[in-house]
């Protein structure tokens, strides 16, 4: 219960918001005045050291200078996160306005405040951006990239990324140059190369902005992967174009050779980036093979290798983003086969956390930089830029789709095209690239202003309106799908089928090469990169194990099984290669129980979440504990406590011995258990042939009949469907049987639950 309950609803929320605002209000002056402090600080301390001979020992002294830099950084991050927190407390706001917009507004306010105080607001330093803020977001995106849709659409994505960006850059650059030629605009000093440079900066779709906005609209997978993939892969084009035009505009002239070199450069940059990423990815996978004794540092290897890949490729002016993506994609299947479950969770959480912080900081800094930066406003130029951005994007998408649809099996509909075009948001990368322009460019300020305007326009206008438009156009949304073993099996079956048909036709097509790659992977690569005997394990088995483990964990967390059990469950159910220490029958029972609970609960599990704000397990926990078990949670807890006591009894008793009669047991536990009521203790009733709630109930009973005819006291009172209550009985029955199954702990009781774990 909350410590202070308010008379009316929403009061507590408002209170928190007020607290946050106060915090911010206090925080800013401290920060802003820090630079002022600094100027006195160093001199002052030196002076006091040298000139003063006798002074009372300072018991309490303030030395801000000592901690200044980390203090400021930490404070900024803290404020950013508090802002983020604040938004989510105001539900209506966060439903209408995407978070990115709110953060930019906050940045604007903060920048304005700082300026009012009279200090110089910090600008988004390009080095800070490219080396610290961007990598976590990209790594998060790359590591959790949904591979199947990506590879299915990679052709389309590449066309959009490369040709689309080139088209945008040249179209915009060219038309802006034409605009500048018009006398009335007053920009006749801007030459073609400068315009093209500007065009290349503004043309690229930004992954950060796309992620931030698309996160919240849950669009269908195809469109999401198209826009998102494009935003990632166009980095190579942007890098090349930017460097090219920068060089050229210094020199002033362009020859055919330069153009040719530019094209070569593009291939070098993109393929080189991918190669660097892949190398580091394999290194990471190889390293993870040996980490079975030092599980704690496993996540660090993943992060560091990826970061090194990024830095290495940046060092060679290759595409860092592509390196990072390649590294994540390559490393993931092998690393996840090797690392423990906890490490996997750690990696997931850390990536989401860092990328969340980065994103927040980027948007806030964008706002602050807007206030800070030198501006040169030219109405015509800026407005034309914005309009041209839109126009070129739309034209590009339509034109390219027309060509692409000739090669696609599943065509892109008009709605898809619209969302792809409308979702082409620009963001902080464009700003940073603009900021990087050296001051010798006379038009730098103008360009910066225009870039910022474009960013604001796309993020605010397009970002805010895309959600209602999606609703309006009834665009297909993302289908919630739980990982289904049916899909896995049948998809694999279909793959084999089509490979076979290709064989019959004598055609060396798509499936043939996929099959070859899989075979190569299985025989050679996995052998080197996966620890222990795991590499022989077929993917289907790994998938199945994953599912069972997840379900077992879910059951434990929801309170249906006490946490004593999982170590035994994990041992018995999830070590396919170990010699079965438990008899087949018990394994069967365990599996049956898990399956029965699958039937009962039918949880919706989100698969392949590339969501920034929510995580797989958190969702499930919420679903399970709140929605499903709210009403019966108390009762379940009670029963669990009952069961726990009984279990301690069973654990010492061999499985097949007949238990004492109900009356006796009741006496024994009476003192412990005051929560007994007549109907809650499932002792006396023998089951009547009542309609079972699930078929498994029937099968469980039957099995009971065969195996343990002498223990009627254990049979739960299955009185027929009583809604949740019957679920509980079922759960209880399962529980009892599970307790019985596991009464023989097995020889490896003390082994840690750190077996290799694979993820969805």
């Amino acid at each position, binding site marked *: 219960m909350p410590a202070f309950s308010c008379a009316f609803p929403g009061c507590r929320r408002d209170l928190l918001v007020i607290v946050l605002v106060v915090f911010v209000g206090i925080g800013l002056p401290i920060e802003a005045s820090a630079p002022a402090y600094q100027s006195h600080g160093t001199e002052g301390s030196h002076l006091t050291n040298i000139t003063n001979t006798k002074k009372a020992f300072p018991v309490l002294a303030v030395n801000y200078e000592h901690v200044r830099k980390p203090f400021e950084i930490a404070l900024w991050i803290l404020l950013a996160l508090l802002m983020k927190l604040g938004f989510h407390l105001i539900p209506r706001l966060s439903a209408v306005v995407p978070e990115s917009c709110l953060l930019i507004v906050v940045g604007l306010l903060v920048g304005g405040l700082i300026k009012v105080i009279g200090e110089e607001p910090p600008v988004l330093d390009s080095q800070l951006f490219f080396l610290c803020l961007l990598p976590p977001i990209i790594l998060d995106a790359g590591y959790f990239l949904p591979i199947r849709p990506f590879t299915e659409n990679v052709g389309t994505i590449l066309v959009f990324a490369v040709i689309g960006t080139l088209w945008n850059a040249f179209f915009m650059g060219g038309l802006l140059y034409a605009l500048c030629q018009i006398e009335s605009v007053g920009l006749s000093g801007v030459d073609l190369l400068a315009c093209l440079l500007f065009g290349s900066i503004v043309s690229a779709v930004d992954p950060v902005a796309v992620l931030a906005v698309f996160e919240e609209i849950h669009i269908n997978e195809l469109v999401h992967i198209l826009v998102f993939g494009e935003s990632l892969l166009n980095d190579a084009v942007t890098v090349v174009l930017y460097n090219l035009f920068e060089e050229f505009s210094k020199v002033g002239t362009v020859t055919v050779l330069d153009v040719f070199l530019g094209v070569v450069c593009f291939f070098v940059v993109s393929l080189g980036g991918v190669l660097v990423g892949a190398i580091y990815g394999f290194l990471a996978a190889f390293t993870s093979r040996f980490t079975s004794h030092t599980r704690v540092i496993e996540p660090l290897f993943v992060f560091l290798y990826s970061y090194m890949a990024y830095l290495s490729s940046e060092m060679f002016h290759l595409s860092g983003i592509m390196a990072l993506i390649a590294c994540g994609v390559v490393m993931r299947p092998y690393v996840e086969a090797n690392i423990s479950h906890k490490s996997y969770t750690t990696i997931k959480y850390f990536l989401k956390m860092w990328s969340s912080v980065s994103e927040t900081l980027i948007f806030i800094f964008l706002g602050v930089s807007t206030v800070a930066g030198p501006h040169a406003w030219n109405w015509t130029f800026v407005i034309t830029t914005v309009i041209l951005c839109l126009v070129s994007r739309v034209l590009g998408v339509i034109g390219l789709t027309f060509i692409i649809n000739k090669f696609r099996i599943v065509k892109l509909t008009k709605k898809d095209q619209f969302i792809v075009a409308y979702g082409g948001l620009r963001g902080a990368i464009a700003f940073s690239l603009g900021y990087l322009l050296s001051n010798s460019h006379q038009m730098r300020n103008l360009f910066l202003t225009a870039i910022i305007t474009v960013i604001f326009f796309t993020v605010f206008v397009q970002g805010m309106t895309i959600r209602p438009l999606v609703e309006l156009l009834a665009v297909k949304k993302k289908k919630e799908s739980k990982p289904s*073993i049916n899909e896995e099996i049948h998809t694999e079956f279909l793959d084999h089928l089509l490979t076979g048909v290709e064989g019959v036709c004598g055609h060396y097509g798509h499936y043939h090469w996929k099959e070859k790659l899989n075979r190569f992977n299985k025989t050679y690569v996995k052998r080197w990169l996966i620890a222990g005997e795991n590499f022989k394990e077929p993917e289907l*088995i790994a998938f199945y194990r994953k599912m069972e483990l997840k379900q077992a964990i879910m059951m434990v967390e929801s309170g249906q099984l006490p946490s004593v059990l999982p170590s035994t469950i994990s041992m018995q159910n999830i070590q396919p290669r170990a010699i079965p220490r438990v008899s087949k029958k018990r394994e069967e029972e365990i599996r049956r129980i898990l*399956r029965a609970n699958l*039937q009962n609960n039918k949880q919706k599990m989100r698969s392949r979440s590339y969501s920034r704000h929510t995580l797989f397990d958190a969702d499930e926990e919420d679903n399970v504990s709140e929605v499903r078990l709210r009403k019966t949670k108390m009762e379940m807890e009670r029963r669990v406590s009952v069961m726990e006591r009984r279990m301690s009894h069973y654990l010492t008793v061999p499985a097949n011995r007949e238990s004492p009669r109900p009356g006796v047991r009741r006496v024994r536990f009476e003192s412990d258990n005051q929560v007994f009521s007549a109907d809650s203790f499932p002792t006396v009733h023998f089951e009547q042939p009542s309609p079972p709630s699930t*078929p498994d109930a029937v099968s469980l009973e039957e099995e009971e009949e065969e195996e343990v005819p002498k223990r009627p006291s254990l049979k739960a009172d299955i009185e027929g469907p009583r809604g949740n209550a019957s679920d509980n009985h079922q759960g209880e029955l399962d529980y009892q049987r599970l307790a019985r199954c596991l009464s023989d702990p097995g020889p490896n009781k003390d082994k840690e639950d750190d077996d290799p774990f694979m993820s969805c």
Partner: protein
Amino acid sequence: MGSTNSTLSKIPNVEELMQETGFTPAHIVRLYDRFEALDKEKTGHLRPQDFGAINRLAMNPIGDRIIGAFFSPGQETVDFHSFVRILAHFRPADKKRPKDPSMPEPVNSRTSKLKYPPLVFSLISVAFQLYDQDKDGKISRAELLQVLRSMLEMQVTEEQLESIADRTIQEADLDKDDAISFEEFRKSLEKVNIDHKMSIRFLR
């Protein structure tokens, strides 16, 4: 073009075949060449052994089932027409083709027919048929186990196979008859983008 025409003229009832399956002349010619390459003894029919000679099929876990699909029950050989008709199931569904009401629906439409006369299948139905060897319209647990066994190539224990099969059936089985009917099979695959998967560009 000349060679195409001359090859086409060798095939009886080519027009009817093209209309029924939707293949272009170029496709038919390619398939005919392939047919002849497989038919080493030039009998004009293919036997299971001819298929077996294809290495890629031999390596395929479900290769023998695929071969079996070409032969209708009771037949020992398959002629060119049946060969082409069966391969027509793997063509991408062409939604834009105008449907001539007088013609029979082309064999690769996605809508299914529950009781299937031998040659008019839907895309998913082919896969279903390959699972369902005894042709009772359901994938029983035993049949599923067989498929799993052949796909997983003996790398797993029998208990694991059984529990996977159990779970699969449980997931898909809506009418609780402990087997997967065609409807249930189709339903479990509705999230998978079949059109994208099941079409071989070669045959377009």
